[in-house]
């Protein structure tokens, strides 16, 4: 009788733990829909990636479609290469798609913005492992100031 109560109490305890965990997993965390299940990889070279990090989001019009999965340097001139893992749900990007590194808000984190290109019979769709060539690098504050001063001086 007593041991039955103990079993019951421990059972309730474990159920509470599972409930709390699922609350945390489902309610508090992003369930990572963008990079779970089927994914494919796209690559892009930039001149400067600014403050981009691994796991930074990849967004189309503000909607998260994937995440940055690796950042490395490539080629003879050490160009930054960004590997993006995109959800297979969004597999229809054309080769005219462009990527840019953007900043959310004035002080926010940097993320990658994908601009889907036009689609007609002459363009090919991007597939797993393809490179996106139309890239815009991150804005670096010092460069901006330099440009501003330069344009002032030339007036």
């Amino acid at each position, binding site marked *: 009788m007593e041991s039955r109560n103990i079993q019951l*109490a*421990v059972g309730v*305890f474990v159920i509470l*733990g599972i409930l*709390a965990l699922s609350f945390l997993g489902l*309610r*508090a*965390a992003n369930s*990572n829909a963008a990079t779970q299940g089927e994914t494919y990889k796209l690559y892009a070279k930039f001149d400067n990636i600014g403050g981009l990090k691994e796991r930074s989001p990849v967004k189309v019009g503000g909607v998260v479609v994937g995440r940055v999965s690796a950042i490395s340097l490539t080629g003879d001139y050490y160009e930054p290469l960004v590997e993006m893992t995109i959800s297979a749900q969004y597999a229809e990007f054309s080769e005219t798609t462009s990527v840019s590194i953007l900043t959310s808000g004035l002080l926010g984190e940097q993320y990658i913005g994908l601009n889907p290109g036009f689609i007609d019979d002459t363009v090919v769709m991007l597939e797993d492992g393809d490179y996106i060539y139309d890239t815009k690098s991150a804005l670096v504050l010092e460069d901006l100031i330099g440009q501003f001063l330069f344009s002032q001086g030339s007036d």
Partner: protein
Amino acid sequence: MLNAIAKLGKATLDTIAGAGAALLMLGKALIGVPQLRKSWPLLLQQIYAVGVLSLVIIVVSGLFIGMVLGLQGYTILVDFGAEQSLGPMVALSLLRELGPVVTALLFAGRAGSALTAEIGLMKATEQLSSLEMMAVDPLRRVVAPRFWAGFYSMPILAVIFSAVGIYGGYIVGVQWLGVDDGAFWSVMQANVDLYDDILNGIIKSVVFAFVVTWIALYKGYSCVPTSVGISRATTSTVVTASLAVLGLDFVLTALMFG
């Protein structure tokens, strides 16, 4: 001067010997084929004593800490017009740090000290010797189920602590101070990661569970079997376990998020 150096040497030797004895105790307790039929009820009973009975203190402190985080976070964030970040602030503080750490500290104080005192008293009243003379290994019979119970219970308690804490932050932030309901959860979801934050928090908690339970059991098992000895061992459990948790927390945080 020489005396001081000799004292330091003795203290070092004692510490090393203690660590070795603690390792030996744990090894002897855990290695070997467990007899499921006999050890299952023992384990359940200990999870009840160590885990279920700690539930109230964990839920109450989780709720209050979450509410305080909500209140403090709001007053700071509202100055920057960033009160919508209250959700992730509360959630991340709890999941990464406060959940595992405060749970481990409370666990050391409530369950750890009880384990030390219980085993110390069993030693003082010759119950451990008596088990041994009955050809029952006290390490397997007494120490092992308590160890596993602590090891399983603490991560569950930490998860419950974090969940209740987030709810506490929600009550204060949203219901009381008027942060937007939708923004609270959605900004939290955008910033809390299942693996980086929740899983790492649970890993921390598992490490703390191992260390705190181990310290508590060893202090009880090795105590001087007198009333003074047991009271010293109990104090020492709480102090050593708390320091170990805080020190390890720094190391783990540096490894995980550094």
